[in-house]
C-alpha cells in the first residue's frame, strides 16, 4: 500500500532533500513509523507523547487530520499526505488563515 508523503523544506534533511517520499501504513501513526525506518529522526519531529506535535499540520488528501482522527486517521492506497510546519506563535490553526480579502 503506497502513500505519497509531501515533506516540507524544513524536514528535507531527513529525506536527502527529497520533496516527496513514499510510505506505507493503515493509519498515520503507522505511516510515520514506516517513514522512520528509512528516514531516521523524522518521526520525533512530527509526534510527541503519541500525538501530533502542536506546531505540525498534517493533511490527508488536503484535509486537516485534526478534524479527522488525528494521528489515528486511517489511510488507504493512493492517499496523499502533506506535512507542513505551523507558524511559530500561531495556534496551530492560524497558518494562512488570512487570505486576500
Amino acid at each position: 500500500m503506497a502513500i505519497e508523503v509531501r515533506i516540507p523544506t524544513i524536514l528535507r534533511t531527513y529525506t536527502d532533500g527529497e520533496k516527496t517520499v513514499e510510505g506505507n501504513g493503515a493509519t498515520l501513526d503507522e505511516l510515520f513509523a514506516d517513514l522512520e525506518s528509512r528516514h531516521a529522526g523524522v518521526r520525533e519531529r512530527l509526534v510527541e507523547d503519541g500525538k501530533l506535535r502542536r506546531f505540525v499540520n498534517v493533511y490527508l488528501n488536503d484535509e486537516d487530520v485534526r478534524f479527522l482522527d488525528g494521528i489515528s486517521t486511517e489511510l488507504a492506497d493512493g492517499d496523499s499526505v502533506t506535512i507542513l510546519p505551523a507558524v511559530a506563535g500561531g495556534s496551530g490553526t492560524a497558518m494562512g488563515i488570512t487570505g486576500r480579502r
Partner: protein
Amino acid sequence: MRYDSPLAAVGNTPLVRLPHLSPSEDVRIWAKLEDRNPTGSVKDRPALHMIEQAEKDGRLTPGCTILEPTSGNTGISLAMAARLKGYRIVCVMPENTSSERRELLTMWGAEIISSPAAGGSNTAVRVAKELSADHPDWVMLYQYGNPDNAGAHYATTGPEILADLPSITHFVAGLGTTGTLMGVGRYLRERVPDVRIVAAEPRYDDLVYGLRNLDEGFVPELYEESVLTTRFSVGSVDAVTRTRELLQQEGIFAGVSTGAALHAAIGVGRKAVKAGESADIVFVVADGGWKYLSTGIYTAETTEAAVEALQGQLWA
C-alpha cells in the same frame, strides 16, 4: 428583478449545478455565483452591511473617513459604497497585489496605502491598526473582527442558499476573514441537521509561504472553530487546476480562490461517493477572474505553465 438603486441589488445571486464537475448523479456540486454582485465579489454583502450598521448606530456619520486593511475585494466594495454615500476611504493593502486591484480601488476613489509584501494581509492589518491609533477620527470597520461581516451572510447568503436548495448537505467556502463560513455556517447549523461546514484555506508555495512566516500567525477575531466541520488546505497547483476546469468544463470564469473552494468541494464529494452517500454540496464563487487576467493563468497552454505564472503571488 427590479431594485430601487444599485446598492439595493446586492445579493440574490444564482445557484447553479455543475453537471460536469459533480462526482456522480447523487453527489451534486452547486456554485453560488457571488461574482454577480454589483462590484463583482461576495464582499459587497459584508461591506454594505457593515456600513449600514455603522450608520445605524452612529459610528459612521456624514464626512467621515473609512479606513480598512484589504487586499482587494472588500476595499473595492467599500469604496463603491463610500463614493455613493459620500465618505472618504483609505485602504491599506500589501504591495504585491495585482495592478487590477489598485486600478479598481483608485477608480472608485479610494486612497491606497501600501504595506510591505512580507507578512501579506497580516501586515496590512497591523499597519491599519497603527493608522487607526494615529487617526482616532477615522472609522475602521475592520472586516476581520466586525460581527456585521458574518451577520451579512447570516442574514442573506445563508437564507438564499437554503431557500434554493433545502437538501443541502455541505457548505464550502474560502477561509479569509472567516465571515462567510461563520455567518452561513451558523445559519445552516440552526436549520439543517448534520450539515457539514467546510473551509478551504490557501496554501502558498515555499516562496510566499516563507514571506508569510516572517509574521505571527493571525486568527481573525470572527473565527470560531466549532462552526466548522473540517478544513482543507489547498495548494496553488490544485487551486489553479480547478479554476481552469471550472472555466473549461462549466463555463464559469472565476478567481483563483474559487478554484481552491471547488477543490475542497470535490474532495468532500469524493468522500461522499466512497461512503455511498448522496450529497448536495454548495461552494462559493467569491469573485470572477477579471482581476487575475494579468497572471496569464486562464490562457496558459498547460496547467504547469499557469502555476508557474502564479509563482510568488498571493491569490486568495
